[in-house]
């Protein structure tokens, strides 16, 4: 049994971790391994590298999960893998289309300059949309396992927090005061005036002409709040179900290890604990130095081989020193190592190799 099989027996795997560690690769590898073992799996990726897009057949951004042909890899009966690439902007548009009270309100929001900026720029929108997509997949109930890759986060577990923050934003007095007639706006009209004055001054100075756009945007969101609140609560409940596992992914590099420390503490703040820590791209164990000493080789070549061994040993020692604080950090959480293949995965077989290289750290 591979070290991955404990994980892939879950219903939902959420992969979190710093950017640039191969999070999407690991998510895809775990999903593929589960599919080969006979489960029906959906994997949802956010920002795959071009090569991974190729492997998963996602170059064209299909709106629906699409099947990846696995026959050549001989999956067990019932095994299938579908992949989906999240498009936060489009997902946000779909939500607006769904919840907008009228066609006019819908068009007003979709065409609004502030909305277009918000749906791209505001931290958390991609995270929130990932959660929305997850709810959609869940509702379909056609898979045994969903593997979710989350947007790169900067240290906090932004994805897990996203529904809450989205609610904060939409219900914020600041937005309400700008022109929405929510309950409180009447009593606080004076601040409304202040906010308008600030924006008007900013417009005059910068030449941006924002005020009318902001007012239109906020007004058009009226009536959509309830829908968002409901969905946010569902997502919060889902990530706390026992069949959901958080997998924290990192790589054996100094900075990533520091960022991982931040991740673990923000998980703690949310009352969550990772089901596993996967360290990606760990060096293979080194051969025995004695082999060189025993071998019948010319002395100069032996010296070179010894020097080469010493060089790689130094790198491995460096890696070990970086990983040490991680072991202490996640006391009790299984730590799995994925071996460095020397290059990025090129095809499905490479992904299988990655999943099967996972071993419990000694």
């Amino acid at each position, binding site marked *: 049994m591979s070290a991955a099989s404990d994980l892939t027996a879950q219903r939902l795997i959420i992969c979190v971790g710093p950017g640039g560690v191969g999070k999407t690769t690991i998510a895809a590898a775990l999903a593929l391994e589960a599919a080969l073992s006979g489960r029906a799996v959906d994997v949802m990726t956010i920002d795959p590298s071009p090569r991974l897009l190729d492997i998963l057949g996602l170059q064209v951004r299909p709106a629906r999960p699409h099947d990846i042909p696995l026959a050549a890899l001989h999956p067990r009966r019932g095994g299938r893998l579908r992949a989906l690439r999240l498009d936060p902007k489009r997902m946000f548009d779909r939500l607006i289309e769904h919840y907008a009270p009228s066609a006019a309100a819908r068009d007003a929001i979709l065409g609004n300059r502030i909305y277009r*900026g918000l749906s791209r720029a505001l931290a958390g929108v991609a995270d929130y949309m990932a959660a929305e997509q997850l709810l959609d997949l869940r509702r379909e109930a056609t898979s045994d396992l969903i593997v979710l890759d989350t947007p790169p986060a900067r240290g906090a577990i932004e994805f897990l927090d996203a529904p809450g923050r989205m609610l904060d934003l939409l219900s914020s007095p600041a937005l309400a005061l700008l022109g929405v007639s929510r309950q409180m706006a009447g009593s606080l009209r004076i601040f409304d005036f202040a*906010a308008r004055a600030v*924006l008007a001054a900013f417009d005059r100075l910068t*030449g941006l002409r924002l005020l009318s756009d902001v007012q239109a945007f906020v007004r058009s969101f009226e009536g959509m709040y309830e829908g968002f609140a409901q969905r946010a609560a569902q997502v919060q409940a889902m990530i706390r179900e026992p069949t959901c596992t958080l997998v924290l992914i990192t790589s054996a590099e100094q900075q990533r290890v520091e960022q991982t420390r931040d991740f673990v503490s923000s998980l703690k703040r949310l009352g969550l604990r990772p089901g596993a820590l996967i360290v990606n791209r760990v060096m293979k164990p080194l051969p025995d130095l004695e082999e060189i000493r025993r071998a019948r080789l*010319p002395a100069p070549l032996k010296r070179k081989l010894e020097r080469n061994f010493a060089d790689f040993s130094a790198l491995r020692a460096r890696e070990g020193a970086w990983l040490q604080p991680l072991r202490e950090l996640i006391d009790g959480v299984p730590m799995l190592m994925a071996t460095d293949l020397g290059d990025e995965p090129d095809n499905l077989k490479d992904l299988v190799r990655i999943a099967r290289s996972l071993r419990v750290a000694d």
Partner: protein
Amino acid sequence: MPLPHLTLITGKGGSGKSSTAGALALALSNRGKTVLADLDQRQTSAQLLGIRIDERGNLSAMENLQLRSLTPRNELESFIERIVKIRAISRRMLRSHTFGYVTAALPGLEAFLMLERLRQLADEAAARDGFAVIDAPASGGVLELLSVTGGVRDLAPSGTLNRLARAVDDFLRNSGRFGVWVTARPERLAIHEASETLANLRDKLGIRHVAAVLNGVPDQLFSSTDYAKMLGLAEHRRLALQRKATSELAARARSQFEEAGFEVIELPMLYTSEFARPQLEMLAAALDRLARRDNKERSNLHSKHVRGK
């Protein structure tokens, strides 16, 4: 190519951006006052150098090397304070939550203010004959950051922002003021991505000073006849071949970059069990050697040219 007053270091995650930025800042601090700044508040290169930045974001680390952490919030504040001359009004703007949301949502405003800050850093560096080195986000983010001025000019067809956007555009295309280094390790796909980034920077964004940094290039330890002799030591041979493959890949990458017309800066693989200040100093020394060699070539070229006349 002589170095511009401000060099921005980018590359994909794990390609050695921060170590390159730290090493370059060390090397430049021997020539003039140098500012090393990051845009993500992680202070990674400062940590590698063994220096921490204080709460206020500033610390004079060494006589000739100063550290900065640039944040969108601070840039917005200083921008507002600059354009709004009356403090009571600028303070009220900055305290307004609404204003915070709107500016965060406004496409590219934060990125743009960051670029405006880089322009100022370059101006300041030029004025004191010094340098600035920016430890920037990964390549995708940087392309987005550097292409933001067009959007700002569309959004604000006139007024302060429009004027600033034009000034920033000029700055990005001024090879004496602004340059970008793209870091990559000798891995097939990493090289491919770096080539694309470099081409985008030069051809789409019109940035005139772009260079490729090949990080972690191993020295060739074995001769070509050695590998056949170690067949009995399969695992050790694998390590030897791994080293050979990486070094060959670096050589291929080098000629690929050069054929496409990009300058290449090669930094050696350091086989050390630690990676901290002493290692950055080794890399800084390597950068210094490259710069001296470049100068020599240039002066040779110059003298040939003179003789030719």
